[in-house]
């Protein structure tokens, strides 16, 4: 059983933010139709990301990981016929999603007001960098610039060091905010029969995830900056070097009980009984020295050993997991975090399973990302009832391109 069985989503999104949103909904069983065109290809199919210039192989892996479970069509929106067909698809869809810059869908004649004429209860969500209104709404944005714009980069980094670019994950965060908004709008439509337009700004979605930091400014005029791994109260609270190359474990201690358990697990080295580490406040004040002393112990163990020793003592210790660790990790394996799909060209490919476990509607990874135009026959033939001849003609006219 699927939570969103019977829901159809027309997906004009590309790269990460939008595809993350529609992929989560596809995992819940919605029929997601990804609209692509060689005129405006999802560049993930071919190359550049923040991690460097991708090879075809990485592109397939990455594109696949963002677009599993979706159907794919090619539709050239620069032709009037293409736009007309898009409108026919809107008529049989529940949700339309795009992550174009503000105004692009309007210019194509596919803005909310036009779509509402065609299908009064349609839900339209546009997930842009800066939102649909405001003086910067036409500004461009990328993952690299979104983290800084939101305020998150400024508060991430070593004390005294430069701000940190957050990874492509900032786009996924925006996608998650979009998925939530779509689900809320679907619930509302179920009760009232009304659709609506949702304007989602990536930078605002990200800024909402630092509300407390922003309020330190609005309440106290304090501009928070970079503070490494430090916590306002807890110490020890850092990542510590372990045995091996570039291996680290995070340890956080919130009270005396955990501190004593940590000391005992480390074999009660002499320094732990020093006055300067005798209470939570003094430990916090002397954490730099304390951190290097703790590291003298962690370096003698692997990051996994430290986790096991300390967790047994009820101290919060978790390795700084690399992607290699996560792939081989027994916990992730038991929970089946990664599953495989059979890609027609590339064979077996791993994708991430749904990030939740729903007892009644678990959701499944059912198919790999679509090949370009793979579902033209199904969508235009079966769903729109077009004849083989018509489809062939439009393909020849580069409408399906």
């Amino acid at each position, binding site marked *: 059983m699927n939570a969103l069985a019977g829901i159809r989503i027309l997906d004009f999104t590309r790269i990460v933010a939008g595809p993350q949103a529609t992929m989560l909904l596809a995992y819940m069983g919605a029929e997601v139709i990804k609209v692509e065109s060689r005129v405006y290809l999802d560049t993930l199919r071919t190359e550049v990301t923040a991690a460097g210039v991708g090879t075809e192989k990485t592109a397939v892996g990455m594109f696949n990981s963002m677009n599993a479970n979706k159907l794919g069509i090619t539709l050239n929106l620069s032709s009037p016929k293409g736009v007309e067909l898009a409108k026919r698809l809107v008529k049989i869809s529940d949700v339309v999603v795009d992550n174009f810059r503000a105004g692009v869908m309007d210019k194509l004649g596919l803005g909310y007001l036009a779509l509402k004429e065609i299908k009064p209860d349609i839900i339209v969500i546009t997930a842009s960098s800066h939102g649909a209104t405001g003086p910067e709404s036409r500004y461009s944005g990328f993952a690299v610039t979104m983290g800084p714009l939101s305020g998150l980069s400024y508060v991430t980094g070593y004390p005294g060091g430069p701000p940190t670019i957050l990874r492509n994950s900032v786009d996924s965060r925006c996608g998650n905010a979009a998925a939530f908004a779509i689900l809320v709008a679907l619930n509302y439509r179920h009760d009232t029969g009304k659709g609506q337009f949702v304007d989602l700004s990536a930078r605002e979605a990200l800024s909402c995830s630092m509300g407390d930091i922003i309020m330190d400014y609005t309440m106290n005029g304090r501009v928070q900056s970079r503070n490494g791994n430090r916590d306002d109260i807890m110490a020890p609270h850092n990542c510590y070097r372990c045995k091996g190359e570039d291996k680290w474990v995070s340890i956080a201690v919130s009270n005396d009980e955990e501190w004593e358990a940590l000391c005992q697990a480390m074999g009660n080295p002499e320094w732990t009984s020093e006055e300067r580490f005798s209470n939570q406040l003094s430990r916090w004040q002397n954490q730099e020295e304390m951190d290097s002393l703790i590291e003298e112990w962690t370096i003698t163990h692997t990051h996994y050993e430290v986790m096991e020793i300390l967790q047994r003592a009820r101290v919060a210790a978790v390795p700084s997991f690399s992607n290699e660790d996560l792939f081989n990790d027994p916990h992730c394996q038991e929970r089946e975090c990664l599953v495989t799909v059979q890609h027609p060209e590339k064979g077996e490919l791993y994708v991430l399973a749904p990030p*939740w476990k729903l007892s009644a509607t678990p959701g499944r990874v059912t198919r790999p990302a679509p090949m370009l135009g793979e579902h033209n026959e199904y969508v235009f033939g079966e769903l729109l009832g077009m004849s083989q001849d018509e489809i062939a003609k439009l393909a020849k006219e580069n409408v399906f391109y």
Partner: protein
Amino acid sequence: MAESALAGVKVLEYCQMVAGPYCTKLMADLGAEVVKIEKPGCGDEARRRPPFFHDIPDPEMSGLFLYLNTNKLGITLNVETEAGKKIFKGLVKEIDILVEDNPPGVMKEQGLDYQTLRELNPRSIMTSITPFGQTGPYRDYKAYPLNVFQSGGEGYLTPSGVENVGRPPLKAGGFLGEYDCGLNAAIATMGALYWRKTSELGQFVDISKQESLMSLNRMDVIVRYANERKLLTRAQQGVPYGGILPCKDDDYTVFVTWDPRQWERLVSMMGNPDWAKDEKFKDHGSRFEHGELLNALLVEWLVNYTKDELYHMGQAKGVPFGMVNTSKNLLDSKHLKEREFFVEIDHSQTGKVKYPSAPHKFSQTPWRLDRPAPLLGEHNEEMYRGRLGYSKEELVRLRNAGVI
């Protein structure tokens, strides 16, 4: 008054700190009735966390708590007592959604697990948020926000850059990873709510914070090892040239030029300096290769301008500059002002304070503020007397017994 998207949806929250409370805040802000259960006496741990209004460490003045609990009703209840369990069971009979963040097994020990809930209220949804989920070898492992962030694969790569190898991996600023988990839990719960509308059946939602964070890095982190055996480390630069660089006033700017046309526009924006014609910078690949040298040359020009000037000038010329915003910059932003992103909220203990509003703007059912975060036990009377029908005397007795 505009309608609310989640009007009529009843949520019971038994959570602390950030992830669980953010999950239900997202619902409360769109009209769900969220009743937050706190422990009598001390309440949510977030009440003891900074930032405090005017730095006064008062449990009613924590900005973290105030932000994460807007639009909720607050009651106190000790569910470890027999009377408390009875009240809890009375409360869950009437709800649509229970969100809790206790370690796996705790709700069961207290006789308040999903089985019990389902018997009392078969249509209800129970969402449990824990560091590693309800199953698997790490299910009982302890993890604070720092540990959670490091569990998801992104921490190991933060901050990217070869200069950071040998220094400890970092968490993202503030509680970012916890907000992420709250949002992921809200997505799953809204999916379950939709299914309930068509099936009339509730279900159990198991949220692992680790998986919530892995989900954000699926593309360029997690699957790259799985499919290519490619281990990523901080040594791989996030952005080989450009990115965050110094500018005027000891500040920072940010830009990218993925597209060759953007690079050409940047060169013209800089007044076509001779060095830009060098073979070393002729295409994307060679610019990647000579990133360090290129950055040094770029900075010589960037330091003549403020981050504001670069942002607007760059965008006007078609070069995707961004702003490295501080909290103050966000509040001063004309763009955010025009979009009314910040809203003033009046709270009895702090007076009016500006808060960020919401990650979305709904045309039909806008975000709105009905009430600020509750005081500890503020709605005990309303809930216990008004809803559950306890008498004044019973309430006094429960209070004296430490139940509420």
